[in-house]
């Protein structure tokens, strides 16, 4: 138990510092660590926790709280959430005090230009991996594709789409 707490703390505090562009970009790494390396849960369970966090109000880092909770209960949830936030928050705290000085600096622009493409690739990788983990039928792949298409072409609130997915599941289609 305490061993997995330490492991959660170590893994997620490292993830915190790699999460350029937000937590979704480290989704593949979370999946690798939680499912492949530690075998704390199956891919399908991982996808379920992710869906639960998406359906819940609040920031999407809550998936980390749920992973911690699944692995080591309430203590796990607190440790994992704290670990994924602390290193990046301390960094933000320090940098936000000096950042004003670099307003419009050329290297700032260069760093952003360089990081954005990598971030986009990671985001797409996250979409690919979570789709493989979540979908086990042709209809499920269809739901994923239709949801993505709807988000891209309309301004509908995502919760409606999660609800529609849930309804299709409930009626035995997925």
């Amino acid at each position, binding site marked *: 138990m305490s061993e997995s707490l330490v492991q959660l703390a170590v893994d997620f505090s490292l993830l915190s510092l*790699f999460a*350029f*562009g*937000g*937590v*979704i970009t480290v*989704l*593949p*790494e979370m999946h690798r660590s939680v499912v492949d390396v530690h075998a704390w849960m199956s891919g399908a369970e991982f996808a*379920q926790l*992710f869906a*639960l*966090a*998406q359906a819940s109000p*609040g*920031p*999407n*880092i*809550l998936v980390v*709280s*749920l992973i911690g909770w699944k692995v080591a209960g309430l203590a796990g*949830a607190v440790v994992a959430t704290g670990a*994924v*936030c602390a*290193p*990046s*928050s301390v*960094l*933000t705290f320090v*940098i*936000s*005090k000096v950042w004003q000085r670099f307003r419009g600096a050329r290297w700032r622009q*260069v*760093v*952003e*230009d360089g*990081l*954005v*493409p*990598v971030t*986009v*690739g*990671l*985001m*797409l990788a996250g*979409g*690919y991996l979570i789709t493989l983990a*979540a979908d086990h039928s042709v209809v499920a*792949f269809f*739901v994923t594709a239709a*949801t*993505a*298409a709807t*988000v*891209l072409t309309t301004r509908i609130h995502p919760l409606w*789409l999660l609800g529609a*997915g*849930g309804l299709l*599941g*409930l009626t035995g289609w997925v």
Partner: protein
Amino acid sequence: MPWARRMLVEERRWLSDEEFSEMLSLCQVLPGPNIVNMAVCVGTRFRGARGAIAAFLGLLSAPFAIVLALAALFTQYGELSAISAAFRGISAAAAGLVVAMGLKMASSRRLRSAMALFALAAFVGIALFRLPLGLFLLGAAPASIAAAAWRRR
């Protein structure tokens, strides 16, 4: 994030539109959850370290409690076939949200150049070869930033 903007800029008027955008761009460059970084930035700006901690706890406490309550309910009743069937559909839709977010970002103007190769490399390395992220970023991030610098000469 749209809600954060509405609260900070329009309702409380703690930040001007420009200050908000600037803070957001910093929080997006830095690693970590963007919205958490944003809370830390705003808190620091008004009340230093204690403000940052207050903003952090304020942002996360309620959602944290709610999501754990949902998870507890899910463990209790998740075995029911109706719930697990519904969750197969919800999981599939949630995956679609991530796919859409990725595709939306892929249409960024920063990708309309050879820099798109770095996005491709990240996808292939992480999704297909399942490389550890840290290892990948140690190589890819400096290379990508160097390429960006070279292009801006």
